[in-house]
């Protein structure tokens, strides 16, 4: 059993390390501001490493039997292009490829696009006259302020009350090569007693209520739901799909945990899949979060309070940060 002094000394090491981490984060960000370009030698090294990675996992993920001649080279790890015996079994298309382990490619988030839903047109409207477009923009602006000193660039698809089509929102994120896309919306549900939170990522749904919601949010896109089938079939095998789910879970958890304390009757409807246009078209992990129910007047009263909207923004920030931190966690499960 550790003595009090030993425990204190362990705790102090934790305090000091924690503070050094804060300090180094400041320095890292200052450096990033000064110089964003990558040195050619580092780039070359990264390309070589990536090349080696592409070759090696191609062998490792194979479900086909390994030819006897190549087993020595694999066991020693000394694999060079000339050592690889590209027998028909190995070069054949993989019928059941294993997912790539995320830990093999350390990823970082640099740019986040926040999409305040609607604008110009009001979106959902409460009986007391609170419009979805106002709430989503207010929360998005708060979120950007709260992340102002984070090591990410946060961009908003709109900063004023203006009409913006769904494909323009998608293009905005794709053209800027965003690493994450978070679309903020407020719900309208029957019966009006419901107060619920839910977060969506791309995927099919058989739930009539979700289909109805997707149809409403996709209004003006020019497509019908059936048009998406082909696109969706390609997306479901995409790694982006798993990352979007992880991001959705992180945001839903933080949001519910935070808001439940001040809104005790709030219901956690969890993470769901749905074919929203903004989730289909974006090329990065993307989610759509329904932060409140404008159909419930008690909730609308809460939404009119600055504190409550600040809490929502804080919880979204925590969700994004938690997801970003998990990308570099050593024991993170592969996607």
């Amino acid at each position, binding site marked *: 059993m*550790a003595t*009090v002094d030993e*425990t*204190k*000394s*362990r*705790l*102090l*090491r*934790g*305090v*000091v*390390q*924690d*503070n*050094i981490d*804060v*300090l180094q*984060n*400041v320095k890292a960000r200052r450096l990033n501001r000064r110089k964003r370009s990558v040195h050619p030698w580092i780039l070359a090294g990264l390309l070589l490493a990536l090349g080696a990675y592409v070759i090696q996992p191609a062998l490792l993920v194979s479900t086909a039997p390994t030819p006897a001649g190549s087993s020595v080279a694999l066991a020693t790890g000394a694999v060079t292009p000339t050592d690889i015996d590209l027998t028909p079994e190995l070069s054949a298309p993989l019928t059941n490829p294993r997912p790539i382990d995320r830990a093999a490619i350390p990823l970082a988030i640099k740019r986040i696009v926040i999409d305040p839903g609607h604008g110009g047109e009001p979106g959902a409207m409460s009986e007391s006259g609170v419009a979805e477009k106002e709430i989503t923009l207010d929360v998005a602006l708060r979120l950007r*302020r*709260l*992340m*102002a*000193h*984070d090591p990410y660039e946060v961009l908003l698809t709109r900063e004023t009350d203006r009409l913006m089509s769904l494909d323009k929102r998608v293009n905005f994120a794709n053209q800027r090569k965003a690493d994450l896309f978070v679309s903020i919306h407020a719900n309208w549900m029957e019966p009006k007693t419901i107060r619920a939170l839910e977060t969506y990522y791309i995927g099919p749904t058989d739930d009539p209520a979700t289909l109805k919601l997707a149809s409403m949010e996709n209004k003006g896109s020019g497509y019908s739901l059936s048009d998406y089938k082909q696109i969706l079939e390609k997306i479901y095998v995409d790694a982006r799909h798993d990352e979007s789910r992880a991001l959705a879970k992180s945001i839903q958890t933080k949001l519910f945990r935070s808001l439940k*304390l*001040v809104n*005790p009757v709030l219901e956690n409807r969890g993470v769901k899949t749905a074919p929203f246009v903004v989730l289909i078209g974006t090329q990065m992990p993307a989610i759509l979060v329904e932060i409140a129910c404008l159909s419930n007047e008690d909730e609308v009263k809460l939404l009119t309070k600055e*504190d409550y909207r600040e*809490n929502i923004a804080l919880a979204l*920030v925590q969700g994004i940060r938690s997801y970003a931190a998990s990308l570099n966690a050593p024991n993170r499960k592969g996607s």
Partner: protein
Amino acid sequence: MEETNETLCVGIDLGTSRSSISASNGQRHVVDSYVGWPVDMVARKLVKKTVLVGRDALDNRSMLDLRRPLERGVMKEGSEKDQEAVQEILRHLIDVAGIKQKGKGKTKVRAVVGVPAEAFRVSRQNLRNTMEGIADSVMLVSEPFAVAYGLEALLHALVIDIGAGTADFCVMQGRYPTEEDQRTLPNAGDSIDEQLTKLISERHPEAQFSIHMIREWKERWSFVGEPKSRVVVSAPVKGKPTELDITDEMRTACESILSPVCETAVDLLSKVEPEFQDKVRNNIILAGGTSLISGFAEVIQKSLMEFGGGRAVVVKDPVFAGSDGSLAIARDASSADWEKLSL
């Protein structure tokens, strides 16, 4: 380079409502976290100072641009004036602790500052920047952790530090607490004030009172559970001093934070390893100004009955528990550690 004669350790609890300092020279002080600047030449002539801090600022508030620069235990963001106000509070604390900050013989200050348990990295960075020129080296720690360290409640303990801006929770399990071991709630003293203001306004719409009167009433008569006596206060109604019975409003407002506090405590307890949950449940430590609400510990114990019971105690000195704990950390840290964290 300035000559330094002496090295002093300080522990600071930078609170939304009050801030305290405990220094290794034996000084301990608490100030109201208010800062005010005279609004014009006349005011400056009357108050005879360029800046006022604490009670001094509150008492002269009609002549000042008064700021309460902390929100939920951290600096308000985006306002240079508030950042300046935080610096003034920190300078004032160092000054009242008798520490020489300028000139020949300037004291070298090693400061440990308590921040809310879940304070965001950005807030901690802001605070570090604000400390430049005030301390030579700085460590930031979570407030409940500082309390636990000071009390040597390092193993199987749950510290709940309830201040004005936040209620901070930390489970101590003999190791440096992770994010999972800590929580911060916005339901604390300020939310009681808001609730109390709303309830009294509803019941006595013609009564006039300020937020400062509300805070004074709460500090004097707050309670949960059964009242020991009626709470009767005086406030002007149409200009005439009138007695108002606010017993029910006081109880409702104070009890409004009970449910989130108990829920969070139970949630944290449920994450402790099963064989230790009983020990932690029987070692709940309450600190911070809001923990002084009469009957608070008893009601928390009562709420734990359905989970097998528990024991909650209020620390002997809730106002200084955070700064004393921070001072203990400052003293125990080695010079090498302090060097790494110099500003």
